[in-house]
C-alpha cells in the first residue's frame, strides 16, 4: 500500500509503467536492428570463409598442374632438344657431318613439343638454356601468388566479420538482460527497487548501443578491392626472374594502392637487397614488421641486413626476437652468433654457436627416431654458417666485404674464434649427415696443403707431369688434387667435397675408404676427361678433405671464364 501509493511529484506508477513500455519498445527495435546487423555480418563471414576455401583449393590445383607442366616442358621437351644437340655436337666434333645433320634435324623437330622452346623463352638458333624462370612466372607463379594473396586477404575479412558477428551477439545478450530488467521493474511494488532495476537496465542498454555503434562504424578493409594484389603478384613474377628493378616498380604500385600491405614491403625489401641497396632493404623490412609481419623469417632477414651495415646491436636484438618464435631455426641462431662475434663478444658467440650445433644434432636425432628426415634447411643452415664465417675471415684478411673490417671489433680474437668455429661446424655437418651423430674427437693424420694441377699425359695415356696452379683456363676437363699425408690408416672414411662459388656441387663428392697406407703422396682427380663435350664449369672452386668426418685440409682454385 505504501510503496505503490507513494508517488514523487509528476511520476506516478502509471507514468512509470508507460515510460518503461516505451523504453521496452525502443530497446526491442534496437535489438532487432542489431540482430539484422549480426545476421549480415555472419553472412559476410560465411562468404569470406567460402572464398578462402575456394582460393586455397584453386591455388593447390594450379600449383600441382603448373609443376607437372613445367616438369614436362623442361625435363622432357627441352631435355630431348638438349640431348640431340649434344649428340649433334659430338658427331660434328668427330667429323661425322651426316650424323650431325640427322641429329640436328631431329633436334629442330622437338621445338614443337613445348612453348618453352619458342621465343620469348628460348632461341633455338642461339642455343643455351631456356628462360625457365620467365616461363614459370607466366605459366603459374603469378596466378598462384594472386590466389594465395587473395586467400590471405579473404581470411582477414572473414576474421573481421566473424569478430563483428560475435560481438553483436554480446550486444543482443546485453539488450535481452536490459529488457528483462525493464519488465521486472514493472512488476515490483517498491519504488526504490523499481527505479534501480530500470536504471541498471537503462545503463546496460546505453552501453550496448554505444558499443554497437562504434563496432558498426569500424570498416572492414578488403585488400582484394584495392588492386594491390594484382600488382604484387606481377612483381613476384618479375622477382622470380630476378628482374629486380621492374619488380620494385610494381611493388611501389602495390604499396601505393594499399599502404599497409606488409607483403609488398617484404618483396620490395628482398628486391632492394638483391640490388645491393641494403639501406632501402632495411627500411622496407622495418615497414613490413611495423605493419604486422611477425614472422621469424622477416625478423631474421632484417637482422641480417643490420649485420651487413655493421649495426651489430640491432642485428643481435632482432635475431633474439626471431628466436623467441622459432628457436629451432638454425640460420637465425648462427646469424646471432655471427653478429655477436663481429661485435667483439666472443664468449657469447661461442655459446650461441654451441647451442646451434646442439640443436642441429637434436633435430637430426629426433627426425631419425620418428622415421623421418631432417629438413634441407638444417644442412643449408650449417653450410651457410660456415660460409659466413669464411667471408668474415676473408674480410679481416683484406678482402672487400660487408661489414667492413673496420667495423669489426677485436679483429684478432674474432679471427681466431671464427677459424675454430668454422672447423667445428664443418665437422658437425659432415658427421651428422654421414653418421647421424654429432662430431666427436680429433684426427691424428696430417695432410699437407692441397695443391691443384692439370695433368699432362703421354701418348700411352700415362701421366707425365702436373702443371700446378691456382687458376686454369676455361676448357680444362681434369684437375688433380695433390697432397702428402702421414698418420693415416686404411679403412678410414675419406671424403672430398667440392664447392663452386660458395655452393657445394654434390655430383663431385668423392667418398671411399682409405686404401693408400699410412704415409705417402696421393692424387685425387676431378675429371670430365671421359666426356667429349663437357669441361669444368668456370668459377671459384674450394675442395675440402675430410677424414672420419673431420675436416683435414682445404684449398681452392679458379677456372677462368670462357674467352
Amino acid at each position, binding site marked *: 500500500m505504501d510503496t505503490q501509493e507513494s508517488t514523487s511529484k509528476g511520476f506516478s506508477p502509471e507514468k512509470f509503467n508507460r515510460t518503461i513500455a516505451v523504453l521496452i519498445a525502443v530497446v526491442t527495435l534496437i535489438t532487432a536492428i542489431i540482430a539484422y546487423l549480426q545476421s549480415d555480418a555472419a553472412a559476410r563471414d560465411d562468404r569470406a570463409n567460402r572464398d578462402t576455401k575456394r582460393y586455397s583449393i584453386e591455388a*593447390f590445383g594450379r600449383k600441382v598442374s603448373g609443376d607437372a607442366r613445367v616438369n614436362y616442358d623442361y625435363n622432357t621437351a627441352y631435355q630431348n632438344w638438349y640431348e640431340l644437340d649434344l649428340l649433334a655436337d*659430338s658427331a660434328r666434333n668427330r667429323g661425322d657431318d651426316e650424323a650431325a645433320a640427322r641429329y640436328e634435324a631431329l633436334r629442330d623437330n622437338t621445338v614443337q613439343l613445348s612453348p618453352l622452346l619458342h621465343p620469348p623463352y628460348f632461341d633455338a638458333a642461339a642455343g643455351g638454356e631456356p628462360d625457365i624462370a620467365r616461363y614459370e612466372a607466366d605459366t603459374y607463379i603469378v596466378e598462384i601468388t594472386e590466389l594465395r594473396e587473395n586467400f590471405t586477404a579473404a581470411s582477414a575479412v572473414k576474421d573481421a566479420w566473424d569478430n563483428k558477428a560475435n560481438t553483436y*551477439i554480446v550486444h543482443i545478450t546485453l539488450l*535481452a*538482460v536490459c529488457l528483462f530488467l525493464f519488465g521486472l521493474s514493472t512488476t515490483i511494488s517498491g519504488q526504490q527497487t523499481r527505479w534501480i532495476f530500470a536504471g541498471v537496465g537503462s545503463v546496460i542498454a546505453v552501453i550496448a548501443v554505444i558499443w554497437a555503434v562504434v563496432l558498426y562504424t569500424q570498416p572492414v578493409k578488403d585488400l582484394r578491392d584495392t588492386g594491390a594484389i594484382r600488382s604484387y603478384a606481377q612483381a613476384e613474377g618479375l622477382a622470380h626472374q630476378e628482374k629486380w628493378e621492374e619488380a620494385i616498380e610494381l611493388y611501389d604500385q602495390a604499396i601505393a594502392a594499399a599502404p599497409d600491405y606488409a607483403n609488398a614491403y617484404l618483396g620490395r625489401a628482398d628486391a632492394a637487397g638483391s640490388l645491393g641497396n641494403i639501406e632501402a632493404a632495411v627500411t622496407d623490412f622495418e615497414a613490413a614488421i611495423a605493419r604486422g609481419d611477425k614472422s621469424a623469417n622477416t625478423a631474421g632477414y632484417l637482422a641480417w641486413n643490420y649485420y651487413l651495415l655493421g649495426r651489430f646491436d640491432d642485428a643481435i636484438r632482432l635475431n633474439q626476437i626471431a628466436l623467441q618464435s622459432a628457436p629451432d631455426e638454425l640460420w637465425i641462431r648462427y646469424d646471432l652468433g655471427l653478429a655477436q662475434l663481429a661485435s667483439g663478444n666472443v664468449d657469447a658467440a661461442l655459446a650461441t654457436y654451441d647451442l646451434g650445433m646442439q640443436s642441429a644434432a637434436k633435430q637430426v636425432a629426433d*627426425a631419425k627416431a620418428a622415421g623421418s628426415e631432417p629438413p634441407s634447411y638444417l644442412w643449408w643452415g650449417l653450410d651457410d654458417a660456415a660460409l659466413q664465417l669464411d667471408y668474415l675471415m676473408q674480410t679481416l684478411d683484406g678482402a672487400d666485404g660487408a661489414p667492413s673490417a673496420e667495423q669489426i671489433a677485436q679483429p684478432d680474437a674474432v679471427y681466431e674464434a671464427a677459424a675454430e668455429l668454422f672447423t667445428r661446424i664443418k665437422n658437425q655437418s659432415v658427421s651428422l649427415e654421414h653418421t647421424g651423430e654429432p662430431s666427436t674427437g680429433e684426427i691424428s693424420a696430417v695432410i699437407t696443403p692441397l695443391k691443384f694441377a692439370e695433368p699432362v699425359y703421354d701418348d700411352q695415356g700415362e701421366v707425365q707431369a702436373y702443371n700446378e696452379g691456382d687458376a686454369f683456363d676455361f676448357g680444362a676437363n681434369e684437375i688433380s688434387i695433390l697432397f702428402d699425408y702421414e698418420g693415416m690408416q686404411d679403412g678410414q672414411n675419406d671424403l672430398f667435397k667440392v664447392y663452386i662459388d660458395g655452393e657445394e656441387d654434390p655430383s663431385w663428392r668423392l667418398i671411399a675408404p682409405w686404401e693408400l697406407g699410412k704415409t705417402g703422396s696421393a692424387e685425387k682427380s676431378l675429371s670430365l676427361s*671421359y666426356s667429349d663435350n663437357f669441361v669444368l664449369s668456370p668459377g671459384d672452386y674450394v675442395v675440402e678433405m675430410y677424414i672420419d668426418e673431420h675436416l683435414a685440409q682445404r684449398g681452392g682454385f679458379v677456372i677462368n671464364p670462357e674467352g
Partner: protein
Amino acid sequence: MLAALITWRASVIEDASGDADYDGLRAAVNAEETRALNNVNAYENYGAYTAFKRYSDLGDLIAEDQVSAASEDAAMLVEAERANAHDLAIANQFLFPNKFLNRDNSYALQRQLGEMWSDAAREKDLMPEAKFAEADFMRSKSTKMMLSIIWCWVFPWCFIHWWNHWRNKRIS
C-alpha cells in the same frame, strides 16, 4: 542473467570450434598439396636419375667392350658410342639433386620425399587431426554449457515451488 551469459559464452565457443574445424581443413589441404607436389617433383627427379643411370651404365659397359674392338675403325665407333652415352649421362645428372645419390649409385627417393615433407612442415601446418580434436572438444564444451542453461531455468522454479510449499505448510 546467468543464462544469458552462458548462452553468449557457448555461442563464442561454438564459433571457435568452427574456426578450429576450418584450420583443420586448411591443414588437410596443405598436407595433400604437399604430398601431391612432392610426388610430382620427386618422381620427375627419379625419372632423370633413371635416364642418368641408363646412360652411365651403358657407357661403362661399352668401355669394357672397347678393349676387344676388332679394328681401329671399330674402336673409334665404339669410343664414339661410349662418349655419347657418358655425355648423355652427364646431361641428365643436372636434372636431379645429386645429394640423394647413395654411395652405391642408387637413388635415395624416400630420403628425398622425407626431406621435402620436413621442409614443408617448417612453413605450414600439415597435421589436421589436432585441430579437429580441438574443434570436437570445444563443441562438446558448448553443448554442456547449453545443457547447464536448462538447470538455470529449472532450479529456480523448483526452489520457488519448494519455498512456497514449505511456507504454506508453516502457515497452516
